Each structure stands twice: as C-alpha cells, then as structure tokens.
C-alpha cells in the first residue's frame, strides 16, 4: 500500500458537472482529491481487508442477535424502551439490509482494525461506487495508469443486484428515497441509490425527511397524500426513535432500508460488545463501556460518544492526558472507550479505509485522508487502484 502522485484529469470538473457530482468541493475545500491515489496489492485487498470485513460483519450480526434478546443490553445501547419490541421484531423477521461501511485502520501490513461500523446511514457511496470507478477508467484510457490496474469496488453492481432481490418482496410498491433538506452530499447519495434502484426496475419517488406526513389512519404519507410503505432513509435510527412520529412506527408498518435493527450496529456500544464476545480478535481494538474503564488497563485510548457523526465529540487520551478533542453536539447518551490505534500516516496525511458491504457481501473500499488525526467531515476522498 502506497500513495502516488498523479496528474489530474484536465476536465474532471466539467465531467463532474455533467454527471451531477455536485459536492466535490465543500465549504470551500476540496473533498474529491485526485492529485494522488493509493495503490494496494491484491493480497492486501483480499487477505487484509475483504476477508476480515466478511468476518467482522458476521461477528456484528452475532452482537445484534444477543442485544435484541437482552433488555439490559438494549439499555446499554441507549435504545428507547418503547421501541425494544419494534427493533427486536425487525431482527427476528429478518428484515433485509442494503449496505454498510466499516471504518478500518490499515496501513498496508498487519491486521486491519475496526474503528466503527456505519451500518445505518453510510455516505461517500457515489464517490466510491461510481466516481472513483470512472476515474480509473479515464486514467487508464489516458495512459496515465497501467492497463492491468484494477480497483476493489464492485459496489454499484452489487447494489443494483441487491435492489433487484429486494424488489421480489415488493413487486408493486413504490420505493421512497429520503434525506434531510439543505445537504447536497446527502441528496447526491440518495439520488445515486435511486438511480441504482431504477436500474433494478423499481419505481422510485423522493421525499425529504422533514416532509413526511402522518395520516388520520396512522400511515406515513408523501406530498401527494399517498401511503408510504417502503422507504430508504438517509437519516439515523437513533434520531428517528426519539422523534414525534416514532410513536406510530409499529402501526405504520413501513419496510425501512436500512431496517430498524441497524440501530444496534451503527451504535458505538457495538465496539465494547464485540470485544466482550470476541476478546483478542485480531481485527478488533480493545473497547470498554464507561463502567469498565477502571479495570480495563487502557492507558492510551479514544473516548467516543455512543451516538455521534463525522468525528464529533471525540477525545484522545495518552497516559492519562487528553491530547486531542473535537467539539460537537453529541455525548448526552454516554461514551465508550477504545484502545488508541492511530491512523497510518502517508506523508503528512492520516489515512482511513472505508470497507463496504452490500447485504452480507464485502463490496469495495473508499480511502479518505485528513491532515487531522481524527477523520472529520472535511477530510478528502482519494481514489485507489489494485496493481
């Protein structure tokens, strides 16, 4: 695994406009960065990332199985009590999932370690599934990359196939796509998924999360006052379960993508739970709940809120001293503690691997770089190749 400088495609910004990639630059900073790329060997991809992702995913499912059956654990995961049944039933019914992204620490050797699992609302999907794929094709065609260069990225293909499977259960339903207002990135991600679903022959409709309505007979409705029965939402379960309409979730009987049981996986309490169930696993970092910290012998650790997004409210503690902290609006629901395992540095960049799953299958990676030790929402997205 190494980082190489490469000439940018001279017309990529025009190309981005043509394909509707609107968020390559955010808050005045580059987000998509093709001034360099990462190169992996096939063995690094298959042995160090793909296989562990598969295994970690299965371990995560074992955690869900255990947590939904145990009220004390549901409490530790900060699932509101009135929704325990709803979430348990979603798991027992085998509600299908679409996708997830695991964040891994990996620098080219040794075991990749799980940082966290974005199993509910992962973004950077379009950049991964399509945009970096196009980048590779363009760069190979321009003679700037070896013809044999490949990429670990079958995301788009797998997502379309997954939608085709999901359609079997919903032959006549319209699939609604939803995200919050005022975010180009989320809207772009959802549009991409809608395009994939359309390619799978599904009839799609879009509605903003804030516009979802509630009917007199306790159905969720769209802006034409039609019932919503099947919906993809790029909006976290941990928010939804605490909002006004959560009261009617059971009655409204929507098939959600991602399904309600994902509330267990996208939750940082997953990490100490994994460590308890699979202690010493080579792809896990020792992790603990707050009340276990004293006996944990952790010296260097990262404190993470149970619910948080984009690197907010995280602090790093080395030998009893806080050496870094990010602010943010999270942390009310408590924290977990994870052994400190710094991101590998390539030059003055810290690099994080996002390893994707579609259904239960590993499906590719995204690479993000940050000048900061904690990857935040302004980190840059870098393409990669296998050679």
């Amino acid at each position, binding site marked *: 695994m190494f980082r190489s400088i490469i000439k940018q495609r001279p017309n990529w910004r025009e190309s981005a406009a043509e394909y509707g990639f609107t968020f390559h630059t955010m808050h005045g900073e580059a987000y998509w960065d093709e001034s360099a790329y990462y190169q992996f060997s096939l063995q690094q991809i298959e042995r160090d990332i793909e296989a562990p992702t598969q295994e970690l995913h299965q371990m995560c499912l074992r955690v869900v199985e255990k947590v939904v059956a145990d009220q004390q654990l549901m409490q530790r995961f900060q699932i509101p009590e009135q929704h325990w049944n709803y979430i348990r039933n979603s798991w027992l019914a085998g509600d299908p999932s679409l996708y997830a992204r695991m964040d891994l620490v990996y620098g080219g050797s040794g075991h990749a370690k799980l940082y966290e699992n974005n199993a509910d*609302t992962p973004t950077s999907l379009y950049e991964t599934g399509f945009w970096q794929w196009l980048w590779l094709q363009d760069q190979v065609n321009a003679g700037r990359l070896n013809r044999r260069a490949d*990429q670990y990225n*079958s995301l788009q293909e797998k997502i379309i196939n997954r939608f085709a499977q999901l359609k079997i259960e919903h032959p006549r339903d319209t699939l609604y796509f939803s995200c919050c*207002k005022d975010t180009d990135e989320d809207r772009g991600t959802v549009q991409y998924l809608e395009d994939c679903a359309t390619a799978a022959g599904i009839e799609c409709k879009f509605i903003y999360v804030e516009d979802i309505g509630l009917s*007199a007979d306790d159905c969720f409705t769209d*802006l*034409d006052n*039609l019932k919503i029965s099947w919906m993809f939402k790029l909006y976290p379960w941990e928010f939804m379960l605490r909002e006004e309409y959560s009261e009617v979730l059971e009655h409204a009987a929507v098939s959600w993508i991602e399904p309600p049981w994902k509330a267990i996986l996208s939750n940082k309490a997953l990490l100490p739970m994994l460590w308890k169930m699979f202690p010493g696993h080579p792809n896990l970092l020792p992790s603990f709940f707050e009340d276990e910290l004293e006996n944990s012998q952790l010296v260097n650790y990262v404190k993470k809120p149970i619910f948080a*997004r984009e690197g907010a409210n995280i602090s790093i503690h080395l030998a009893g001293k806080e050496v870094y902290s990010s602010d943010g609006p999270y942390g009310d629901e408590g924290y977990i503690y994870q052994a400190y395992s710094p991101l590998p540095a390539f030059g003055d960049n810290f690099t994080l691997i996002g390893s994707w799953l579609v259904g239960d299958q590993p499906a590719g990676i995204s690479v993000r770089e940050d000048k900061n030790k904690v990857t935040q929402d302004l980190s840059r997205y870098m393409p990669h190749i296998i050679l």
Partner: protein
Amino acid sequence: MKRTQSIDLRVMRKAPKLFAFRPLALAVTAGTLIGCSDDTQEAQVYKSVEDCISGNPGETQQCEIAYQQAEQEAIKSGPKYNNLAACVEDFGAHNCQSFPVQNNQSIFMPLMAGYMFGSMMNGGYRSAPLYPSYPRRPPAYGKWTSTDGNLFGSANSNKVRVNDKAFKAKPTVRRTMSRGGFGSTIAAKSSFGGRTSRSSWGG
C-alpha cells in the same frame, strides 16, 4: 476483476434538472394520456346518470353502476383537504363538499363533476371519476382532470381519448394530519457552533 464490470455512462449523466411545482394534491401531467400512443380509446364523458342514459338508450343499469363505481373511486382516491379554502383554491368555489369524519371533524373533497365511460373488450363498461379543472391555473384551465391530477380534453367536450391506465383504480389518497414529525433532531444539532451549512447527516 474486483470492480464493477461495466457501467452505462449514458444513464449516469444528469440532464439539467427541471423543477416542477406541484399543487398540494394534484400533479399536472398534461399530455401523458392524451392520444400519443396507439393503445388509446375514445371514452365518453357524462356529467350525470341521465346524461349517460340519453347517450346510451337501453343501458340504464350500466350507466347507474358506472356512476356509482366512479363515485366510490372518487371518495377513495380523490384529493382530500383539511379545510375548505384549500379545496376551493384547487377546484373553485361551489365545487367542494365536506365529509364528516370522526370527532366532529370534516374533510373537504371536490365534487365529482362527471365520469368517463368506456367499453371493454368483453362488452362490459368501465368508468372513472372526473373533476372540473382548477379554476385559475393554466394549463389546467377548462380541462377535465382525474383523481391523480391527469388532464384530459376540454371540459366542454363530451369525448376524451384515454389509454387503459385512465380507468385503473388509483392508490388510496390519505388525509395527512401533520408533517414534520421526523427531522426535528437535526434542527437542534445543526445550530451547534453556528454552522449554517452542513455536509451530511450520514457518516
């Protein structure tokens, strides 16, 4: 190969977006059903059962059944409003009526002003409700419209060309009591640090 084998780039290109403003309950999709494909048929439009009978002597029973079916379909899939003013805005004064629902409340729906009446291959008839156009809004002005907002020919005409879809039962339209019961968390979180724009609620 570890990557997607092929992607149809034509599909991935995004044409410049056209934004359509949709009225509350009706989407105007003029032209989609009118005479542009071969599977259209001519349907009669009648404003009343008597109107139908005089056009189809001897078919009294069919005309009555068709009317009742259209009326039931109108109640199920027609637009529903929480107040009279909203209904009047879309359909005009005197074209709205109230229906009592539970707790002494009422909803408002446009009056069915006519119905389409078409023959089927097997010799039977079928029907679908029609409303007067919205009063002030072109291109709907002076046209017949269906429960889901499709526009047909002039409301002065008693014949329209439609395809099969026009007679299909439409999805049940609900009465929406409120909106905004999801999404409240972000209002609290996004004010953090005075950031006015944000990138993602995913991660």
